[in-house]
């Protein structure tokens, strides 16, 4: 985006609905400062326009007097609009040709230009209609790939989410105040100020760890959770893969080593998108872990949100399998149950339950739809719990919080080792500088105000 455009308030126009697929309705938005009646060469209607009420209009090409389209017009006078300027929204028919013609005509007869990507939002930000955190929330809404993520983005957009930031701001402000009191007014306050100081340090720490917890789940796990299947060759990974997907993607055969490296597919469980990954099986070699397939897939497995260890019960090998447990799966799925007698299976199940304590065990019968459905719901539930603690989804906020945490640990180190307030106050200033973009600028006067309203100071 060109920053030159920040200081312009020229009229901008753009379709705000997707034009890639044919749809019934497309919306064109115009923002700037204008009188809606000025457009009546092109947009014909009868009677007055009422703000925020839809009105049926005809869009007419002034040169040919041909009606291009019938549309619904909504007028939002400033400042009560998305951008804070005067906004006009035209809901025309969804044919891209209509949209293009209307936009061309508007540009031809009025001085307006096509908005650059994000420019409406930028104007909203500039006109104080949205905070930076809200802009980022909006971005997250538009890119949400699951219902929990969407809900999370909504919270961020509606600015409710800021409570953790407010808590942080409160804690930082208080601590800064105490530092300044100790330096500038130590004659005026009693010794109890030192216990206030350590308490305030803990409050800062708590506020920072609360925020840090919200960013400690890697973003890719929240946004694009991966489910990875691993196990020995011929364990039944590809069959499970296809059953989860619901169609045949992976080449299924009984020859060991059919799947090379890995294959992946997008799939969704009740609206939440996942990436399902089938790793390479293992070829016949002496040492399991030196198998090229699993080594290639190693990073993939470690980074995945869900790790599923698939075991062929008919060729169960205790020693080999134990080595694969180092990948720390959440689920173990046993396959090929039909090759074992039901009596043996009963005994085996008991043994397996005690051996694999702490893992979720599933026993998969061939073509068992109930198993697949339950298994999917179980995975979905695990993903939903990630959102229980309001994770922060915006990359900028996440990186600022990481930096604050690092700066705070520097500060604590100095606090524990030197107790030199001159240095401490400078280190704390660095935390405040980092935090500014989350919580706003903290001015000297604000801190002094805080001091004078909380402590009795002066001669």
């Amino acid at each position: 985006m060109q920053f030159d455009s920040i200081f312009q308030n020229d009229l901008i126009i753009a379709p705000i609905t997707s034009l890639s697929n044919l749809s019934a309705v497309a919306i064109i938005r115009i923002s700037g400062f204008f009188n809606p009646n000025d457009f009546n060469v092109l947009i014909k209607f009868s009677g007055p326009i009422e703000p925020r009420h839809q009105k049926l209009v005809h869009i007419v090409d002034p040169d040919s007097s041909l009606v291009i389209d019938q549309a619904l017009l909504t007028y939002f006078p400033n400042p009560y609009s998305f951008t804070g300027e005067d906004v006009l929204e035209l809901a025309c028919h969804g044919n891209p040709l209509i949209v293009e013609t209307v936009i061309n005509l508007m540009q031809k007869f009025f001085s307006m230009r096509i908005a650059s990507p994000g420019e409406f939002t930028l104007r909203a930000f500039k006109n104080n209609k949205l905070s930076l955190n809200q802009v980022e929330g909006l971005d997250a809404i538009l890119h949400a790939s699951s219902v929990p993520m969407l809900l999370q983005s909504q919270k961020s957009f509606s600015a409710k989410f800021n409570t953790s930031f407010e808590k942080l701001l409160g804690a930082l402000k208080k601590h800064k105040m105490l530092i300044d009191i100790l330096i500038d007014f130590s004659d005026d306050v009693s010794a109890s100020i030192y216990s206030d100081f350590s308490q305030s340090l803990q409050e800062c720490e708590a506020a920072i760890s609360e925020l840090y917890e919200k960013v400690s789940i890697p973003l890719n796990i929240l946004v694009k959770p991966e489910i990875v299947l691993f196990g020995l060759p011929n364990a039944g990974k590809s069959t499970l893969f296809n059953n989860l997907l619901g169609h045949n993607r992976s080449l299924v055969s009984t020859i060991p080593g059919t799947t090379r490296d890995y294959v992946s597919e997008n799939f969704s469980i009740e609206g939440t998108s996942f990436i399902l990954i089938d790793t390479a099986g293992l070829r016949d070699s002496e040492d399991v872990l030196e198998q090229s397939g699993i080594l290639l897939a190693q990073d993939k497995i470690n980074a995945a949100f869900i790790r599923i260890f698939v075991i062929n019960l008919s060729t169960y090998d205790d020693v080999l399998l134990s080595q694969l447990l180092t990948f720390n799966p959440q689920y173990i799925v046993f396959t090929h149950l039909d090759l074992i007698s039901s009596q043996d299976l009963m005994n085996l199940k008991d043994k397996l339950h005690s051996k694999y304590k702490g893992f979720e065990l599933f026993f998969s019968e061939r073509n068992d739809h109930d198993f697949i459905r339950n298994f999917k719901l179980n995975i979905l539930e695990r993903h939903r719990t990630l959102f229980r603690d309001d994770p922060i989804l915006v990359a900028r906020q996440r990186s600022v919080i990481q930096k604050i945490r690092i700066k705070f640990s520097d500060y604590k180190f100095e606090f524990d080792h030197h107790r030199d307030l001159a240095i401490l106050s400078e280190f704390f200033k660095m935390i405040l500088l980092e935090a500014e973009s989350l919580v706003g600028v903290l001015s000297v006067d604000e801190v002094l105000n805080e001091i004078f309203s909380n402590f009795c100071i002066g001669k």
Partner: protein
Amino acid sequence: MNNFDIVIVGGGHAGVEAAYISTQYTDLKVALVSLPHLPLASAPCNPSIGGVGKGQVVRELDALGGIMGKLADMAGIQYRTLNESKGEALQSTRVQIDKELYPEFALQILQKIKNLTLVQAKVQKISKIDDELFKIDVKNHLNYEESLFSKKLICTVGTFSQGILHCGATVSNGGRMNADFSPKLSELLPIVKFKNTRFKTGTPPRLQKNSIDFSKLEEQKSDDRTNNFHLLNHAHQRSLNQVSCYLTRTNSQTLKIIRDNKEKSPMYNGQISAIGARYCPSIEDKAYRYPEKNDHHVFLEPESLSGATIYPSGISTSLPSDIQDEFVKTIDGLEASIISKHGYAVEYDVVDTSQLKKTLEHKEVLGLFFAGQVNGTSGYEEAAAQGLIAGINAAQSLKCLPPLVLSRNDSFIGVMIEDLVSMDRDEPYRLFSARSENRLYIREDNAALRMYSYRKTLNLNHEIDQCLDEFYNNYQLLLGLVSESIFDQSGEGEKLLVKDAIKQDKSGSSVFLLEQYLLRNGLYFDYRIIKSVAIEVRYAGYQERLKKDYARVHRIEDKKLHFDKIMASDNVSFECKQRIKKFLPETFGQLKRLAGIRPASLAAIAGDIL
């Protein structure tokens, strides 16, 4: 003979400082006009010089060729290092002074200055004859009227302009108790447009020393190790006997009396409408604003060696005298105390400092400078520093030399002046160390070094100059030495440089470490040089690291603003534009420090310069 290059109106700390510095330009003819029967550079409130932030200012003043540090040492009767345990960079000096001797010494020094004329008279009116010449109409104590003429004028009238005193319901005129007052600013200086702002300050009652029982109070002795202010003096040698201060406290009984008499307080019954500083609250403010708190510190400070009065710091008041008599007696040690002079409040006219340049010259009436409490500051040190800056710049401008403007990055004086000219203030301004962005560097120990190049650009030849050169050279010498010498010659294994030994010191006193090292090796350096080097070495790494961090995070602070673009922008509110036009900030950092700039406007401007 009534023609001068510079006339200074007002003989307080600002006026005296302006006179002392401008007469160092030996070919200038300077007059200092002060009210008859009032001592020069007197201390009408607390009997101390220095404090956190203020101690730094006194040392900056001293290195720039000012008089305050010198006078404080001559009249010093108790020295203390504040923040001693909180970190070497934060240490500040406070000196209790003998209030009777301080003005006497000031007079002695000023009387000896050949190119200074001391005039005792009341200024009636200041006008301009032409672009270059001011006419100052004065009346002496015999009502004899005459006029002085001057090319530059420095106005330091303090609290005297239309000063009104309040003690209970008793209201009188005066810049302070038992003193005359000056005409209101708009009458004194009809050539200037004033905004009619009035501030208020107050002072506590004074107690008779022999009526106080000190035996049960906590004593605070003078500290022999605190460095003198004046660089020419030996670091620790005192010129007067040293005395103690004492600490006592108010209690629920004291506060009950004050709370019960709220309607008699001029501050709270509407008798005083001017604004006082929150950081300098009267005991009434404390009582009404913090209804839960009854325990307030009261420091008992002797006002002089020979005199019989004590200044009780912490109970400034304008309550009626009988109430003052009553509440004072409830305080530990003061049960039988007798008030020799009651506390009172004073209201006075102040100048809108946003109309001044960083040289303290008025933006519209050129040649006219304002300094001191009339600029809405509080504190002797703040006043003195402004007097010095106005004095230097009046002289520089007479000699067609470039102005001297101190940066806020290397001095507290610079912080104060930038704050003054870039803020509309609704209360008196006091310097706190928190106002500086650079506390790790703006320290007392390196004040002489920080001011060195500023003083050198003035090209003056006064007693301080040779001393500064010596300080600077010895500092460089010792700094070089610690960077190259091995700390412990006898030790085995790894050889440690002295500077690294200082950095790694965990005892918290790098100064002591370096002192011991030099002693072992038979090297002699002035204690102040040792201190300065040790502290610099200790903080150098931190400063470097923080500077980098700061630059990374705050790239935008130093970005230049595009004035025309801001003025043309629709995203900057009209109000904000007005403020920007008025203060003309150059960088984004300065803009951010202006009061009243809306976040939306800031964001819009930030977007433009990123």
